[in-house]
């Protein structure tokens, strides 16, 4: 079967009922889609299939013959990161990183579809993605920034309005 993965045409040999996740990871050695729950629950395996976010663990290869698949590897390069990737860096929207690839792909689909920076809309779009580390606060900020098209400096980290610092007077420096 034929796939276009990150703009590269591939002929793949896996059997037709192999999950797209296994085709990407095992046959094509593209490891950004993560095998999390492998039952469609956690969102870590999300890739774009013809521009739509799909759970690659639940997608049989034969159902996407000829499709264009995009993973995080196809969104940007280290020298030329996508807007969503820059926003995730600037807002520190990752800790252990396991969910990040699926989050970035889903956020890219949301932003590409003209999604707004409205908090409730982002929450609905990304509610199917589990993150155990960040508490989602900074991911939400990152996706909102990408949706607004903020100019972002990836060499600095955004300060977040919900955290206030208090220094005890007289404490050692």
């Amino acid at each position, binding site marked *: 079967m034929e796939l276009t993965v990150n703009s590269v045409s591939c002929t793949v040999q896996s059997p037709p009922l192999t999950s797209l996740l296994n085709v990407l990871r095992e046959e094509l050695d593209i490891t950004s889609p993560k095998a999390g729950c492998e039952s469609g629950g956690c969102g870590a395996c999300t890739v774009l299939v013809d521009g739509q976010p799909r759970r690659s663990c639940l997608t049989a290869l034969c159902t996407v013959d000829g499709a264009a698949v995009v993973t995080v590897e196809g969104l940007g390069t280290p020298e030329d990161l996508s807007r969503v990737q820059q926003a995730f860096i600037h807002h520190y929207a990752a800790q252990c990183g396991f969910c990040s690839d699926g989050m970035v792909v889903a956020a890219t689909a949301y932003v590409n579809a003209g999604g707004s920076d409205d908090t409730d809309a982002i929450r609905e779009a990304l509610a199917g993605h589990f993150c155990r580390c960040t*508490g989602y606060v900074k991911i939400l900020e990152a996706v909102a920034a990408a949706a607004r098209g903020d100019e972002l400096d990836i060499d600095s980290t955004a300060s977040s309005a919900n955290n206030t610092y208090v220094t005890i007077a007289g404490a050692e420096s």
Partner: protein
Amino acid sequence: MALHRGKGLATIEYPTGMNQNGDPSQAWIKVKPDGRVDVFSGTSDIGNGSKTVQSQIVAETLGVPYDWITYDNSNTDSSPMCTGTFASRATFVAGNAVLKAARQVRERILAIASRELEIDPEDLEVADGTVSVKGTPAKSMGVDEVAGAATFVHGELLTGDGAHLNPGAAIVDPETGEVDKPPHAAISYAACAAEVEVDDETGDVRVLKLTQAYDIGRAMNPTLVEGQIEGGAVMGLGFGVLETCYPYYPSAEHRGDGMSTYHVPTMAELPEINNVLIENPSEGGPYGAKGIGEMANNAQPAAIANAIYDAVGVWVTEFPITPERVLAALDARSEPRREGRMVAFDEELSINSFSSTRTWGA
């Protein structure tokens, strides 16, 4: 039938690191001939940022740019021993080990620079990768030049080692409560206020807002601290109202075994979270740091339980506070007496009912 709102508060105090066997951490640092610094420590970074924070400690102590540091904990043969990444100890305990190692390296840098510049080491300072004479900044040499001179002129290696070992646990006098030695490590404190909405018909609990205050010692890396605290808040929310391996109905075989039955908080459950981070430097921590990793998810469940009491007037004494448990507690209030005593908790409703024999308001 209505929605009820309530507020509740809970606090937590948490020690850093362990008492047993001294909880040792060791670190070793060497400087390459070009001034780049290799740090070897056994603390694995599990996403908590310990590599970043320990590299910051080394950069700050040596007076070199952060990006000169390579932190290598990939190999247990070359890295010294460290108990591990747990007990909120990576910044405090392992951080102290790299701090001590870095101080040794700094002394050796100054000793070599002293010989090169022919100035007493006490009159030298290091900042931004340059050793300069105090008060005469024009007279200086780069740390890379110092490292080169150490290697090719003086035949020395710029290196340092450090270790942190806690004294054994304090012995408590059973009569007076007095301890025979002071606390060996920093104690962190935090408070969490929860605002909830409870549906008294369905038992559904929505956490609307978490407002928290954390005594963090010193924010070595503010972004990482915020990440730990925000992440902990949502984990605490999960412990409080969602997550359990043992739903009580109808038997253990029906426990959660996947993402559809074990409920992890998602963005849909995310409440408004506001934090106050109080910088109150500790005495023993590197640059005043404390450990706040593990305590970050402790206060929320209790605060939520208190808020539920404020909202609907019943105590739910088992986590997570599922709709079933809220309804059972509301039912118990409406028919509160069994065998003449008020019960807030029923053995039949729980399979891990440590408090099932307890009675309330006899």
